[in-house]
């Protein structure tokens, strides 16, 4: 069964790129356009990985991350943060809150797919 990835990203164009790349890499992709719906969907579908943008309406990526990590059901889901290149503090904050890895914008779709693969592999080994 293909692995499920939740893409939480408010910007349509980036979401389209990520969705296309991940679907073509063999994953099932579910999307959320804001932080709150990302949190709800994560609780419902329990994805194998969440790609989480930092800047989102309703709830920021950090708030979603903190909520996911404080919930018994979702705390083990690996998180890959998507941040702006110039914001080192965002990266550090995300990692401190429990994110497994991060990718900065602008990004190469191939690099994104490789990182997703690595995080999922790491999770499989750790189980």
């Amino acid at each position, binding site marked *: 069964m293909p692995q499920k990835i939740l893409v939480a990203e408010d*910007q*349509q*164009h*980036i*979401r*389209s*790129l990520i*969705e*296309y*790349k991940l679907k*073509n890499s063999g994953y099932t992709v579910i999307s959320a356009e804001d932080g709150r719906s990302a949190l709800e969907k994560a609780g419902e579908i329990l994805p194998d990985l969440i790609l989480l943008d930092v800047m989102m309406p309703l709830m920021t990526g950090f708030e979603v991350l903190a909520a996911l990590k404080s919930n018994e059901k979702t705390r083990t889901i690996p998180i890959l943060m998507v941040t702006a290149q110039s914001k080192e503090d965002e990266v550090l904050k995300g990692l401190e809150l429990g994110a497994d890895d991060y990718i900065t*914008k*602008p*990004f*190469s*779709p*191939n*690099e994104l797919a490789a990182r997703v693969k690595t995080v999922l592999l790491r999770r499989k080994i750790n189980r």
Partner: protein
Amino acid sequence: MQLQFLILIVLAVTATIFSIVTSIAMVVRKALELGRSRAHARLYQIYSSQVAEFLLIELPALENQPRASDAFRQYESLLSPVKQRLEQMNPSRRRFHRSVLRSVLIDMTQDLTGESAGRLVYFFYSLGFVEEEIQLLQSGRWWIRAQAARHSGLMRARKSITALTAALEDNHPDVRHQAMQALIVLVGVDALSTILRLSRNISQWTAIELSVIVAGFKEEAVPHLIGALESRDQSVVLFAIEMLAEVGFVTAVDPLMNLIRTSRDVKIQACAASALGRLGDERAKTLLTGLLSNRWAPIRLKSLEALGKTGGPDVVKLLTPYLETADAQEKLTAARALATTGVKGLKVLQEYEKRHMDEKADLVRQVLEEFGLEPTHG
């Protein structure tokens, strides 16, 4: 009386009709805007998915040594269905679709790197967006020119370089600023020479933006800054001096010394003296010492400061007599310069303060306090 009443009634009715018509017009306009914005969002979604596919679809591998045109042919085959569809639309619909497609492509170019970003550049050229932006750089409205300059940079279209270079001399600062940023994206550090050569009356805001660019390039920017020392515009020269001191690369020392010798502008000479101090290079000491007897006070004061930063026992010896000068500003600057030299200079100040209990040592006391040292006489 009756006529007046009639006029009032007519005016009231006219005003009521006017406000009703205006309200209806506003509601209609809002509804149209909302409809347009919804249509834009729907179309944006469609084009986002389509462009994502164009950018990420695996294309058949080319031969061992493919020509650029081979890759372009492949990219063109992706675009041709979209182009055909656009051609079949009426002009107004086509304009709308093209504007949405352009915004999708521009948004994507800001978030993508790698081979996909290369495809995007081709799309901009092939769909005629590069040409359009070049034409918009000639618009009579400054905000359109500024946006066109920004878009040209984002499109990474080298064809725009000439038009962007011309935009560096635009009347509006926002257009100049966007052109500057776009040229840096397109040409890299080498664009700095052109930017500085064509700049006039650099505003504080532009100076901040430019300094961020220079800071990004660090020592790579030094040759271009040295070149800018020859500018006829005072603001450009002052900016270049400031940035040479900020970057702190020793190759700047000789050109700055040369500038002091050749320039007749007091502000430039003073600023260059100050920069030499910040660079802290021994080679500048003789020149700075000579400037202590310059006829212009700003040059003398900046040279005192600079010598303090250069440091060394010889400088302490040189600066000490200035504590006796009658010019309060010179005395204060010399005291601060001595304090900057380090322990020896501070010791000289402390001894001076001990020797003079009266107000003659007030300025020295002030400097000692500034440097966190307790004066003997309060």
